[in-house]
């Protein structure tokens, strides 16, 4: 499921919904990480009457609103797996790609390249196998984990009759033991996604400079263009 670059022709890789999803997702993640951190470790107290202030309330509101945006865009993105082009499928099809030896070959090849043991990596139109693996195991599974644990915690506030509680809290909290453990793991999940973001941003910038095709502009205009 990884397509290598064949000629020197530009390829239309990321369709508009994928690009829009990417940037909305990125923004939502920033909002979620910052507000989430301040929910766990609140800012210094605000002075005055409680009725005149709603700081943590607003922070929590931003967190929950961004979480809904994050979730809904991921659902739309999953729809696009079926409606979009073959590149829209790549990061979701990793378990199936893992059955093919050629995919593993590409993964090892890319790993050797990043370990400076190989001078050139193969060029891919969409994601290379290593990137696919990172997208699947770090971004996708990490996001799903955050959505499930996040809604489980949210459902505690909306109460036992709510769909959030029935769909998530009712089984997630007993699974982890108690609410406190879900909080801890949700918090660790944030750091997991931050780790992903550090690696992702670094690799993208690095490849944009050193590879033979465009990388960052591809997520803006959709085209993978071989550099002159």
């Amino acid at each position: 499921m990884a397509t290598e670059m064949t000629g020197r022709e530009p390829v239309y890789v990321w369709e508009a919904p994928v690009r829009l999803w990417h940037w909305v997702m990125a923004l939502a993640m920033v909002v979620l990480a910052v507000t989430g951190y301040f929910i766990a470790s609140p800012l210094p107290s605000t002075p005055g009457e409680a009725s005149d202030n709603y700081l943590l309330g607003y922070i929590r509101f931003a967190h929950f609103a961004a979480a809904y945006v994050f979730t809904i865009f991921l659902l739309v993105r999953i729809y696009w797996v079926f409606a979009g082009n073959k590149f829209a499928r790549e990061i979701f099809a990793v378990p199936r790609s893992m059955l093919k030896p050629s995919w593993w070959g590409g993964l090892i090849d890319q790993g050797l390249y990043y370990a400076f043991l190989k001078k050139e990596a193969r060029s891919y139109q969409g994601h290379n196998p290593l990137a696919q693996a990172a997208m699947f195991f770090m971004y996708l599974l990490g996001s799903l984990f955050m959505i499930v644990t996040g809604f489980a915690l949210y459902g505690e506030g909306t109460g036992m009759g709510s769909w959030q509680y029935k769909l998530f809290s009712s089984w997630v909290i007993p699974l982890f033991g108690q609410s406190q453990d879900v909080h801890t793991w949700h918090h660790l999940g944030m750091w997991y996604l931050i780790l992903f973001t550090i690696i992702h941003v670094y690799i993208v910038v690095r490849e944009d400079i050193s590879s033979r095709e465009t990388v960052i502009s591809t997520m803006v205009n959709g085209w993978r263009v071989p550099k002159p």
Partner: protein
Amino acid sequence: MTPTFYEVMRQQGITRRSFLKFCSLTAASLGLGAGGATKIAHALETKPRVPVVWLHGLECTCCTESFIRSAHPLASDLVLSMLSLDYDDTIMAAAGHQAEAALEDTITRYKGKYILAVEGNPPLGDDGVFCIPGGRPFVDKLRRVAKDAAAVVAWGSCASWGCVQAARPNPTKATPIHQVIDNPVVKVPGCPPIAEVMTGVVTYIVTFGRLPELDRQGRPKMFYSQRIHDKCYRRPHFDAGQFVEAWDDRGAREGYCLYKMGCKGPTTYNACSTVRWNEGVSFPIGSGHGCIGCSEDGFWDKGSFYDRLTNIKEFGIEANADRVGATVAIVAGAAVAAHAAVTAIKRARSAKSNEKVEK
């Protein structure tokens, strides 16, 4: 003929007026609506008194201490009369063989009809030698009495989750009761549970002849469906972002939210913030101390009572999520920087060698 609850109460000198007050209070706390009080009164007047056998395993008796301080005087009298007539090895008048005979008598005479209430839990380590009531390991007694019980109630966090004796590394292998018996168990966790919650659960069972509606972990929904945080009177300060930052600061005097002092209210399911303690006088947060989450599974093993972020033992070190996460992020950042540096050097070198080739 076994007397009804009402008859027993009248014998104890309880007036009909205070009997009805108890019924209304209990109906309200059970959330039964307008007709609830009449139903309870009717059941207690007509149904024969249900015998209760109260077993004590590995425990500290704080559940009993809480129970006999049930706010409404009648409630404690009600259940105390029930218990003194049957079996409770801590507060019954009989002792030794006499007491054991009372137990035998109750479980044979009321086979399949009595309620088993368990305080504490059985330690399974070393064949159960860490808890030997009446010369036998407690787990044997528990299993034998549970076999013919109509309902089993787990009093407190010990019976429900394991509590302090099951805290890491749990040397005696103290085990919550639902793991050693086959009966459905109503868990009434707390260390101790609130007295009104305890009498409420017993009253529900005897009134309706069935267990109250339970959540997935076996707790009665009427008392354990909301967190302390959801009904906390300091909640407005939480939403406003006003916190106690130190025990003696202005925030502490103003009654700000105790979240930063490690209050476990947001993760603890119990009725303390509504029912409160000691005849509704107060509860921990009302006294200026955070909730320690005593009704939650494994609350002894979640690190300090004064930290919101709990310790993670899975990594083999004492660290919280922020310390683990920040360490990983710093290591990743350093790795990225190193990788970038190597990349830059390699590129510079290959550029030089390319120049040479071109020359």
